[in-house]
Structures are given as C-alpha cells and as structure tokens.
C-alpha cells in the first residue's frame, strides 16, 4: 500500500483531492459559492490563491447561479474554467447550466452529491445529479479520493477535447467521500501538464475575442437550432470512446486506470451482477469478494459515466447473466424505482434478452449502505437467478 514515505502521497479528504485535481490542471478562472459538503473545495482553492500558489482569477460570487455564469463566460472567452457545488447550489445554477451546455463551454464542475431541496437534509444522496441529468452535460462519478483527483484531471482532458467540447460534472458522494481522508497520490503539475498537452496540439475552439466581430450564443433559427442540438448529441456519442481512451492514456501516464465508462469487477464468469456507483462500490467490492469465496458467482459493475449512459458496454457485460441487481442512491420519480435501475431497464433491447432486474434503493440522506444491506441484495438477486419470484424494487433499510 501507499505510504507517506513517498512524498507524493498524502492523507487528504475527497474535497481536498478535488481541489488538488483542479489546481493541477491550472484553471484560469475559478468561481464558486460555498455549500456543505463542498465548502472545503472552495476554501482550499481560496487558500492557495491567497498564498499565490495558484495563478488564476478567483471569483467569490454571490450565489451558484452566478458561479455557473462566470465559468461559462470565462470559458467562452478562452479560459480554462472550474467550479464546484452541491445539491441546492447545483439546482440553483440550472438555467445557467443549460446555457453552458448549449454554448458547448468545456467547463469542469465538481458536484458533491447531497440531497437536494424538498425534504431538508444536509446529507449524502445522489438525487442532485439526477435533477440535472438532462442538461446536456457529461456526468462522471468517482468511487474514492484517489479517483476524485484522477477523474478531475481526466474531466478537463475530456471537456476540452476538440471532438467533445462539452461541460463535465464530476460527482462524488458527500460525507462518505467529501470528508473521507485517504492516502492519495498527488501527481506533479509537470506530469499533469504533460498529460493535458495533447489539447494544445488540437485545433483551437472558437473564443470570444474582442474586436473581431464575433458573437456567442446566437439565436438558433429553424434548422440552425436543430443543427446545434444534433451536434451536441453527436458529441455525446463521441464521449463513450473518448472516456475509454483517456482513461487508458491516464493509466499509461500515471499507472492508474479505472476501466473508462464502467468497471466490470469479477463479471466475466458471473451469473449475477450488482450495478451501482460512487462510494457504495467500495463496500460492494468487499461483499462481492466474500460471497465469491463462499461460492456465489457474483460480479459488480461500477458506473463511472452516467451521462451519456454507457449503453453498449453495459449491455455487453450484462448479456447472458441470470439476474441483475441495481443499487440506487436516489429516486426516479415517475418510474417507481431508482434512476440507474430505470436506465438499465432501458437497455434491455440492446442486451437482446430479458433478465430479471431487481432495484434497491439505499443510502438516501446519509443512510449507510452497509455490508449487511449488500449481502441481502446479493441474496435476493441470487434467488431471482434461480427462477424464484422477486420484488422489483426494495427500499433499504
């Protein structure tokens, strides 16, 4: 295991890892508004800014809506722009997020997952990212502190790629990851510069330079609107391959790869699969390992790319399995199940066969997704795989 003897390894929180990730990518403009449990990110960046150890414009805005508009504007003027938020803040910037996506501004944003408004809860939960699912952003989800840092770097690489030009949200669980301190390997700025240097070899995206008669955000009139939307969808299509590729590049450069769009953990010979995302994956790995030792052929799919949804790769992993369970930390209102569950159901035609699917809703509002819970889920999936009747959606605890 990593030791602090290696001077690049530090015990830091998920939030600090996110801040380091941003720092290493050397953003030109950072704008953010503090919110629990994200505040540590903006505080850390502010501290580095005050120390003069990061060279950026740091805008202490008066609300998240402004934060999003600042980074969108800065990005369109050619800056590398970064913001961070959570929950109420995320939904407060919704109109501006749509703008950012429509402008194809390659902004990178960290969203520290927390329950959004409705029932007040200063607690973990992934409902916030579900609220902005259809905003046209790319959405990634991290499992642990190291991945938060690594994925921050990958997010800039992805967002700014000339073939993509889309804003990216990096999600990670509030509390369970935001405040979790683990040993994290922090690369050097030079290493990250090197990894991102490929962006400099690409054609320049259009930027709003004064005096050149350029306008940004014209009215899409008739076919112009349709064309812009179609291009956006096409770019999202290109994200699949790009996410796999840049993760492989990252593995080569830093020795840490994560599987791209998703990680299929012990899935190859598995009869049953549990699909989940975020911090719950770590706990699920330990349970899967234990059940494997007990002779149950169970595999685990970790969703890293939530938008666009990894249709093809997920379908390939799930094909031929006897039963699938999906663990959600949020709700899909109107479907009576969780969003990952609903999206997995939607790829049944791509899988090409019917497989029993069991949804589990757990981890709302800081409720702990325990090993016991996951054990029970695997029991249920296993039972369904044997042809027994099953409950389609189970709420835990």
């Amino acid at each position, binding site marked *: 295991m990593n030791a602090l003897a290696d001077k690049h390894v530090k015990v830091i929180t998920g939030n600090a890892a996110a801040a380091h990730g941003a720092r290493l990518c050397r953003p030109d*403009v950072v704008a953010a508004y503090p919110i629990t449990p994200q505040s540590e990110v903006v505080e850390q960046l502010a501290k580095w800014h005050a120390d003069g150890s990061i060279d950026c414009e740091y805008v202490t805005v008066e609300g998240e809506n402004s934060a999003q508009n600042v980074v969108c504007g800065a990005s369109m003027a050619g800056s590398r722009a970064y913001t961070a938020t959570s929950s109420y803040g995320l939904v407060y910037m919704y109109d501006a997020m749509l703008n950012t996506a429509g402008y194809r501004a390659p902004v990178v944003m960290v969203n520290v997952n927390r329950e959004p408004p409705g029932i007040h809860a200063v607690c973990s939960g992934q409902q916030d990212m579900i609220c902005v699912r259809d905003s046209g952003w790319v959405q990634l989800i991290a499992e642990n502190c190291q991945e938060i840092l690594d994925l921050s770097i990958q997010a800039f690489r992805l967002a700014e790629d000339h073939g993509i030009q889309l804003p990216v949200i990096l999600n990670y669980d509030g509390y369970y990851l935001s405040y979790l301190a683990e040993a994290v390997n922090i690369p050097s700025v030079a290493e990250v510069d090197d990894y991102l240097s490929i962006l400099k070899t690409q054609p320049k995206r259009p930027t709003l330079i004064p005096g050149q008669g350029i306008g940004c955000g014209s009215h899409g009139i008739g076919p112009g609107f349709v064309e812009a939307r179609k291009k956006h969808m096409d770019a999202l299509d290109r994200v699949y391959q790009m996410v796999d590729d840049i993760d492989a590049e990252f593995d080569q450069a830093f020795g840490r790869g994560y599987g791209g769009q998703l990680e299929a953990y012990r899935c190859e010979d598995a009869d049953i699969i549990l699909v989940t995302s975020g911090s719950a994956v770590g706990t699920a790995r330990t349970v899967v390992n234990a059940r494997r030792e007990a002779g149950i052929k169970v595999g685990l799919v970790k969703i890293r790319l939530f938008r666009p949804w990894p249709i093809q790769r997920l379908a390939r992993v799930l094909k031929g399995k006897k039963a699938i369970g999906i663990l959600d930390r949020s709700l899909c209102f109107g479907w009576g199940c969780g969003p990952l569950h609903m999206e997995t159901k939607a790829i049944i035609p791509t899988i090409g066969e019917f497989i029993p699917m069991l949804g589990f809703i757990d981890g709302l509002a800081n409720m702990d997704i325990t090993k016991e819970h996951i054990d029970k889920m695997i029991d249920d999936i296993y039972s369904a795989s044997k042809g027994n009747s099953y409950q389609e959606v189970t709420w835990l605890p």
Partner: protein
Amino acid sequence: MAAKIKKLPKVCDYFQNEDQFSSGVAYCAGCTLELHARMVSKIMGKETVIVGTPSCSAPVLNGQNAAAWHKMGHYACTMTGVASSATGLTRAYQKAGTDATVVCFTGDGCAQDIGFQTLSGAAERNEKMVYICYDNEGYMNTGIQRSSATPYSVATSTTPVGKARKGKETGSKNLPLIMSLHDIPYVATATLSHLEDYAKKLTKAKEKSKEGFAYVHVFCPCLVGWKIPMDSSIQVCRAAVRTNFFPLWECEDGKYKITKEINKPKPIADLTQLMGKYNHMDEQMLANFQQIVDRRFNVLQTLCSI
C-alpha cells in the same frame, strides 16, 4: 438661401467608431432604444464585448445562426446572468492580458428584478465593466408587464386599471441610487434628449471601468408600452428631465453631482400628459405622484450637497 453644414453637434465629438449596427434592425420605428444602442456602439470603442439578455434588444444584439446584426463582440446570456457572465468574460480577459471593454446592455427587468442579485454582486466585487441599464419602466418585450422600475400609478398588463385598482400601487425602485451605495467608481443617469451629457457619461464610464464597476442608468421610453406617438419619444425624455422625474446626475468616486440643473422644474403633469399610460390619473393620484418625485429629488439634492 440654403444653409451649409458648418459643424456637427457636439455629441459627435465623442464618437470613437462608426455605427456598429446593421442599417436595418428590428427596433420599433421611433424607439429610443435604437438610438441608445447605436450611440453606445459609437462611443464604446473597438474592443467592446456587449453582454445582453433576452429583451427588446436580443433580436438585434444576438446573431441568427452564423450571421450577425452588428460588428461588436457579443455574448448572449440568461436574464439572471448578465453581470455574472460579464464577470467571467472580464476575468478571462484580465487573466489573458487581452484589452477589452465589457459592456452589459440590459433592460430594467433584468437589472432591477431578475438579474439584480448578480448586478449587486458584481458591483460589490468591483468587477471592471460598464453596466448600462435602459430603463423602459417595465417588461416591454413580453407584453408591457410591470417591473420594479414601473413608477407609481402606471397602467401595465399586470397592473391594469380596473374598478378596484388603478395601475401600480407602489413606486419604483431607485436603482441608480442603490448602485451608488455600492461604493463603485462611477454611477450616472442619462437620457436621449440630452445627448452630450449622455455621451460624456458613457465616455467616463468606459474610462472608470478600467478601475472598477461603472453603472449607467438610461431613461428609455417605450412607444408601445407607454402609449406615446411614434415621433415623441425624445420629447418624453426631455420632459422627464424638466419635471425632475428623471434628474440627470452622476456619482464619481462617492461625489454626487447633478449634471443638468433645472431652474424651474415643471409639474409632473407635464410629463404624464404626454403618455397614454397615465390617462387614468386623477388629481389625487397626480398629487401623490408629485410627492414621490419631490421626495426622491430632495434625497438626491441632499446627497449632492455633501
């Protein structure tokens, strides 16, 4: 014997540019906003980036697909996001060392209402930009609804004249004064009847924006919404100044000054009679209105005496 042009009016001395707009653009015939927009484009210089929102100006400021209506740099944004988007642009140019004058160009609906938070926030941070609010006293683009800039008693489609109520029951928010209390380098009011005063102020605002936030509040009558004859908009501007309804003043580095002193202010009825939106006013309402105008002017005079 026909006269020859000896010299052009003084306001022309302030022009840095040709008119940057296309000759034919979609403002109503006789609209002061068109004159305003063209003046801004002449005065603000080459490195201007105009930040605008959905409003009467959007079909003129925003491009259409790949084509444009004017030659300035332009950024379209949401109603809430004018000052914040402009902040993003300003900071990006600062970081890159690019010369730029970022000019927010919005109506009162955005500045005073939905975008007020971001305006106030950007002013408090003293962002280096010019913010020009064209005040047409309501949401004119969407069908003449009231805004917080709509004055007392005005009939709009959301404050109509009925049996129980007659127009807007409260007065308007005094935004230029509020902005001056943000301790920013420059705040001014202007209107299109007093063009030299206006040009001077825009020029000063541009200079001051190198130091920080400059705010210019421009009284801009809307023919349709205010029920004014097509040829009379400039007259209405002039009457607004002469009645002290819209005094011309500036506040430079905390020092307030009336730039156009009115020796014998006219009664407010001289203004209201020019417009259909005040048609329902009775004596009592006029007296109330006069009181509001006098009170606000007194506050301004007091500030100018400091």
